[in-house]
């Protein structure tokens, strides 16, 4: 049981880490990219744009919360 918990915790830290919103945003962006590409829509721009927006939002939110504390 201890090893299963440790295994699950490792993958949670690896994928989700400190900000679950970023992980959720990435999952949605990857899913949408897959959907567009399968329908022959040029979708190369979507992932870089999504990653840029998620990163900017996440660091600014963290900065605001550490300033208010």
């Amino acid at each position, binding site marked *: 049981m201890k090893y299963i918990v440790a295994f699950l915790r490792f993958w949670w830290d690896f994928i989700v880490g400190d900000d679950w919103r970023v992980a959720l945003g*990435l999952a949605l962006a990857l899913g949408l*990219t897959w959907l567009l590409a399968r329908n022959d829509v040029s*979708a190369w721009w979507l992932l870089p744009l999504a990653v840029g927006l998620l*990163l900017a939002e996440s660091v600014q939110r963290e900065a605001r919360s550490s300033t208010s504390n």
Partner: protein
Amino acid sequence: MSSNVLLFLTTFVASAVEAVEALTIVLAVGVVRGWRSTLIGVGAASVVLAAIVAVLGPALRLIPIDSLRFVVGALLLAFGLQWLRKAILRASGYKPLHDEGAAFARERDEAGAAAPTASKRLDWYSFTVAFKGVLLEGLEVTFIVVTFGSTQGRLGLAAAAGAAAVVVVVAVGLVVRGPLERVPENTLKFVVGVLLTSFGIFWGGEGAGVDWPGSDVSILGLIAFLGLLSIGLTRLLRQRRIAPSPAVARA
């Protein structure tokens, strides 16, 4: 004769591009998080790769490489973005910088005091990132060799070109490893965050079925985009941190 030279050069260059991608990941993780677990990851991936090649042989082309790229890309993207986020917060002063001198002294003291088993513990993060990078790129090199070699009926020549490319790239890695280790740790972590995230976007997108403009060259564009964005965000946050809030300014 000339078609053999062309086959060798084409396979060599295509394999070298994939091997450089794997080398970038291995160097980045090894220099920042330590070599032991990273090299164990490389060794484990090489064993798995050799087993896959031995069992499947030319049937390798049946492996759903796009699905593998999608999974590896998505995992690398999630991990790399966390790394980059922390690096930006550190560089802008919202998280304490890793004091390398103090950390070295602490680790040296701890290593001296620790039981031998503690220092042998595997760093699963380094292992996993190195393992996935080498396995994916190793499979891609193998696909290139099998595809180019079997279409021309010269599998042996293509395999020699692929092997030569890997040997050359590994030799380059051994040469650049030393200078890389002298780069300040916090700077290196920032760069590694940009690299892991860029490769994650590239592989994740490719696995999802995206056609990148310029193919593998677009990785350079992604690195430039993320690098500039990260520097911009760091400067913005630094300025906000230094500038007094309106309430403080009025007081």
